[in-house]
């Protein structure tokens, strides 16, 4: 089963590499340049795992995460950050992020995290369905 991934980052280079690498592994991936664009995309279709940069102009990663978790609690979000801020990490994790990872990330490790996040989503869905 394929994992529907949404990558959110304001840096075009980063998005380009990400899309290339996921596509190379035959994993469907969609990209959004901002938090607002991501929310718009999420309205139209559902994603399993969102990979999102923390620092973005406009709606930042934390704000977008909050919004995503409010509207689609089952969607898992992996936060990426270029600069280590413990405070925003605490906020991100307590808002329900699956992980909070310092850039640069090893792609294979990120892939593993995406798989784990997806597994969590499936477990969560299974539980909600059994209610």
């Amino acid at each position, binding site marked *: 089963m394929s994992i529907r991934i949404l990558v959110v980052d304001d840096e075009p280079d980063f998005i380009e590499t990400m899309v290339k690498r996921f596509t190379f592994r035959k994993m469907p991936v969609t990209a959004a340049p901002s938090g607002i664009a991501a929310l718009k995309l999420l309205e139209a279709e559902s994603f399993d795992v969102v990979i999102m940069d923390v620092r973005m102009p406009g709606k930042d990663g934390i704000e977008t995460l909050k919004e995503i978790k409010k509207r689609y*609690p089952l969607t898992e979000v992996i936060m990426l*950050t270029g*600069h*280590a*801020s*413990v405070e925003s*990490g*605490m906020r991100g*994790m*307590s808002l*329900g*992020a*699956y*992980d*909070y*990872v*310092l850039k640069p990330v090893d792609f294979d490790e990120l892939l593993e995290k995406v798989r*784990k996040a997806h*597994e*969590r989503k499936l*477990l*969560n869905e299974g*539980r*909600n369905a059994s*209610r």
Partner: protein
Amino acid sequence: MKDETPRADPTAAAGEPAAAPAGKARPLWPHLIGLPGLTAVAVLSAMVLPIPLAVILALFIASLAAWSAAALASRIRASEQQRCSLDAQLVQSQKLAAIGEMSAGIAHEINNPMAIIAQESDWMTHLMAAPQITPENMAELRDSLAEIVRQVDRCKAITHNLLNFSRKMEPILQQEHLEKIMEDMVLLVEKEAKLQGVTIGRDYDPDLAPIETDVPLLRQVVLNLLLNAFQAIPGQGEITVSTRPVGANRVAIAVADTGVGILPENMSKLFNPFFTTKPPGVGTGLGLSMCHGIVDRLGGAITVESEEGKGSRFTVTLPR
């Protein structure tokens, strides 16, 4: 919230045996003064008395010493049991406090719409008491009714959110290496720590098999403990993170720092919500109580050892 099914947690708190009834404080002097005194007598008597008699005396005193050791050991065991049960009581009272706080919040949230509903229905009763209902009154009645419906919806949204909240509270168990769970959080703190001269040492057990736990929840705990450790170190210092197996079916993670340590009188309040020693604005006093809550839900336990001026060590034990 009745459908909240307990998952994987009762083993932890219920694991400790019930406290032995608090024994009367028996005197310690027979062990501390009596026995050494008798031993001295035996040594002295060996110099004066004939050997067979001295041997008998020595054997007698040796058996007394054995009895004394056994008595002391059982007293230590009893007091440890008592401490465990006090810990359990503390957890229980914290739970009650949290429930109290939450219900106050809920009551407040629901009271507002209730007040509006009461007011509107009062007005409606008043309007309908008139012998004839004019078209104006009819319009007002409709307005009031619409308002009541709106407020009921508001209440519904509150209870709906509460249900979601309780659902979210249930851990989702996944297989993962402890080291992997911790490392992202360690990296996050490490960069900031390094700038202030705090190094982070890793002491992961390489042979530890993956455990089954709620990964993001545990990450929150780790991050919180790391942040506390970092903030406890005023200048340069070191934080050490470690993982260890504990017996056959538990594991432990520890976060140790070389910081200021915890005052003995604060040890018992450490996990209380809103308790903080940090200046206002820096800490909310919710970090450790949140950690405690999460670890509890994961079926584990959190303990702390600390020496003032030397540092603290928080240990989280979890089921595998």
